[in-house]
């Protein structure tokens, strides 16, 4: 068992009430797969903590971590 679990890219959800079906389908299925610095969800199992890591998907270097919504805190 690994301490950390990858939770996918952090993505903003479109407004389900105003977006088109196509926009919603794109949100559900499409991803920004190009390499670069990404905001990602990661979970630390032993402490049960989700956090956001900013990670370069090319070099695997993590530049920042913080709790979602508390970006300014750190």
């Amino acid at each position: 068992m690994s301490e950390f679990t990858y939770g996918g890219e952090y993505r903003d959800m479109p407004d389900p009430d105003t977006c088109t079906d196509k926009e919603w389908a794109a949100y559900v299925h499409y991803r920004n797969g190009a390499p670069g610095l990404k905001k990602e969800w990661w979970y630390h199992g032993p402490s049960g903590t989700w956090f956001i890591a900013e990670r370069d998907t090319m070099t695997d270097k993590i530049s920042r971590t913080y709790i979602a919504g508390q970006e300014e805190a750190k």
Partner: protein
Amino acid sequence: MQDVVLKSPVAFAQASKKPVNGQVNGMEIALSFADASVEAAHSETLGICDVSNLSRFGVKGPHAADWLTASNITLPAGTNRWTKLDSGSLVMRLGNTEFLLEDQPENGLCQTLSEANVNESGVHKVIRNDAAFIVSGELTPALFSEVCAIDLNGDALEDNRLVMTVIAGVSATMLKQELNGQSVYRIWCDGTYGPYMWKTLLGIIEELGGGPVGFNFYYKIN
């Protein structure tokens, strides 16, 4: 529920070692596995002791810290730290908003807190079922090097820090404390993993020349 004899989660994994069991804190626990001299040797080389029967109290929520403070309990300095009360009870801060308290056999703080009413919002009692262990001895670095990826020679456990990490594949909480003048490691994990944890750690401990230690070694109960 006084007349109900509960069992340590680890009990069935210990059966093959034929410990002398006894009841402490309403739970049947392995009091000793061998002569005191043998257990003392294990404790010095490498020993593991099941202390799941110590009373514990968990509380969680945005106002849990305030509530404990209001209950006259000294809190640890920061997140992922612990402190020892004068009574000997441990207060652990797991992350920011969760606390785990553990009593010594003789005191009843956890019992009191369990029975206290909580009316405040943002304070939630947590039912615990920990398997709890003491691991001690000079070969602990060798043991932990096999089961744990973090650096215990560094300062990870100094200054009353605790770590939540994976031990032998299972999420666990760990700290280092003085007990009866000896520096020991404490490990807590979900009780359902307790038998596995006991067997796995003891297997390696025995390979390294150590062995099991009974509850009475640390806590003389008459």
